[in-house]
């Protein structure tokens, strides 16, 4: 095996950074799950909440995207 220790740290760091997406995954699943729960109880009100659904999804997803960005920065920029 060759390569230096900084290279190794980069890959380990990138892998660890991807763990941050775990939280975003739980959050996004929670949002869509809760939306379906509410929508099935009151289908009439579901249509107007679509914008809120997408907004919540976008805001939550951004945090997962940030950790992906750290991983990409470690792999390709640092």
């Amino acid at each position, binding site marked *: 095996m060759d390569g230096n220790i900084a290279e190794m740290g980069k890959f380990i760091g990138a892998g660890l950074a991807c763990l941050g997406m775990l939280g975003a995954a739980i959050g996004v699943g929670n949002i869509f799950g809760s939306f379906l729960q509410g929508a099935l109880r009151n289908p009439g009100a579901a249509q*107007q909440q679509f*914008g809120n659904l*997408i*907004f919540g*999804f*976008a*805001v939550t*997803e*951004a945090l997962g*995207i*940030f950790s*992906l*960005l750290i991983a*990409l920065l470690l792999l*390709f920029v640092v």
Partner: protein
Amino acid sequence: MADATNPIEQFQIKPIVDFSIAGYDLSFTNSSYFMVAAVLLIVTLLSVATGKRALVPGRAQSVAELTYEFVAGMIRSTAGPDGLRFFPLVFTLFAFVLMSNMLGMMHYFPAPGLKGFTTTSHLIVTIGLAAIVMSVVVGYGVYKNGFGFLKLFVPSGVPAAVLPFVVLIEVISFLSRPISLSVRLFANMLAGHILLKVFAGFIVMLGAAGGAWAALGILPFFMVVAITALEFLVAFLQAYVFAILTCIYLSDALHPGH
């Protein structure tokens, strides 16, 4: 890594016409080519669709009218009826991002080298778009409300003891908006296209291994088909998200007290 299997090779910017002024590289690149192509396609499609102005719309005119109503409805529901003055901005952003994302999904395109390219998979492009949005929000917010725009950072009905922290959090969340707005679009397109290329690379590798391995290549092939469908959904969804977040930020400029 060879070009064929390198997943980030597809994002390379290559100059088509070399051009520079006083040391600044202003070449016409494949990125510029696809931006021009997106704008020309939008203008052509919309002007052909609305050229006839029939009372009973045909197929093309219905598409244009549906898109118009879609964006107008989005603004009305998030920023209120007075948000409609920003309709041209939001519609332009939505159309440009959607068309760029969709052009990026085409692997072959009548461009130099016949290679597809996603302009929105570059951070500088999405930061440019986000900077336009945030300049309009801050500029119009200050122009319309004056110092009242600062009420945005002071939510009503918060106990005085925690108010400094709430203000701090509101300021940080406002400052992170241009970052999250641009990085979300960029990272979604980048990650999706890398994913497609990695799975496509599996097919090639299994095919090259030969024998029983080559037969297994059908599995990543189906995966690529499924991911391509998902990416078309993401391409639309991210354009929608970009537009609706623009509306929400503009509604802050219109009604800062919340």
